[in-house]
């Protein structure tokens, strides 16, 4: 049975979650992908404030399709996370507690997640039409000029994810794959 979590993520949530747990997330998340990360990293470097207070928050790596008239959002599945790796440790140090994406993280990011007690969730890549059904509200709050890459504040309900990396070094992409490997 999946674990239900109401966001923002607390220290207790983060300490309880283990790689492989299926989770349904509800509450607020912020979207950001390549271009928004680049800008946030520049702001941090220049000592300027970020457009979002990150403490306890979750960032979802997504660039949705345009919403049709009357729709909350278009299709909105996860993009590949490793393109954000370069910028991620600085955000974790600012209090970011969770990330939703798909695919491997670098060793540096994994260590930073352990050090800063944050978790990485995987959503199902390519299940974007289904995922968008669990997004109940969407509003652009920063970098509007970036279009699909702008930062959006999303309200989600029972958004299905799997814990990929926990704060104890667990990694589904290594541990679960080893379990099903038959070639050695």
């Amino acid at each position, binding site marked *: 049975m999946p674990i239900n979590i109401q966001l923002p993520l607390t220290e207790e949530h983060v300490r309880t979650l283990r790689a492989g747990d299926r989770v349904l997330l509800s509450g607020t998340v912020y979207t950001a992908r390549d271009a928004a990360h680049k800008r946030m990293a520049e702001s941090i470097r220049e000592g300027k404030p970020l457009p979002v207070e990150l403490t306890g928050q979750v960032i979802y790596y997504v660039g949705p399709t345009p919403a049709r008239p009357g729709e909350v959002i278009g299709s909105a599945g996860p993009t590949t996370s490793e393109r954000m790796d370069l910028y991620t440790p600085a955000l974790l140090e600012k209090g970011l507690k969770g990330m939703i994406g*798909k695919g491997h993280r670098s060793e540096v990011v994994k260590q930073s997640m352990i050090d800063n007690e944050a978790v990485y969730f995987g959503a199902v890549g390519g299940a974007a*039409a289904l995922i968008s059904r669990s997004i109940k509200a969407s509003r652009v709050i920063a970098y509007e000029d970036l279009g699909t890459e702008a930062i959006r504040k999303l309200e989600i309900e029972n958004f299905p994810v799997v814990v990929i990396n926990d704060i104890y070094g667990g990694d589904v992409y290594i541990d679960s794959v080893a379990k099903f490997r038959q070639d050695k």
Partner: protein
Amino acid sequence: MKEISFAEIVHQVEFMCQKANFDLGEDVYSAFKKALQTEKSDTGKEILSQLVENADIAKRDQVPMCQDTGTAVFIVELGQDCRITGGSLIDAINEGVAKGYSAGYLRSSMIYDPLNRKNTGNNTPAVIHIELVEGSQLTLHMTAKGGGAENMSSLKMLKPSDGVQGIKDYVLDVVKVAGPNACPPLVVGVGIGGNFERCAYLAKKSLFRPIGVRHSSKEIADLEEELIQQINRLGIGPQGMGGSTTALDVKIESEACHIAALPVAVNLNCHASRHQTVQMG
């Protein structure tokens, strides 16, 4: 000499772009259903059933199955006795892509140039390969190719002495390195032979063949079968979260090459293997 109008091509391309993104092909859909019967991981099964549900929603509501609605890639078979009237073939395809992506609320994922990275706003330009063929027909094969799987694709100039074993090792290695990033279960396209650029093209072209259809040469077909089995023993599974369904299919195309060469290209496709074909004339 058969004539095909610019407007007709625009209209067909517009339709193809939307259909590719909304309606998952029957071949992929059946492959999901089949994998659901054989997948050994519970999480893997859950993911596969989400993909089936996702395809159902996309088709029913005519919305994109994935937010990455892809680069529009075309392989065009242009009959040498066919003439395009009212404008150029390339312009017609690009106009169809622009219209199809805008009207269908599909994401524009193309940028003007790789250094300055400003979005073109209508998903053009398309990537267009033209093959001149006999006859008077115009056949357009289109795929909406997502960035995640394309990024994990790879090409290597092997040595002839590496042989079939070298090809197999390399394909498995590319799939292993890609892991979850390319959105498995994958369709793995392999080009063997040609030269550097032809080999990459062959790998891409192989992905246009529907899932379950084997190569006409028995030797290549057997290699496809063997690779499917070996890839599915890697344990990567749906979304790389562990399991027995890593590849829905492996496609190989091969071509003549230089005595010193054994080029191999692996073009990965995510499970949203979106291809459309339209014949005109």
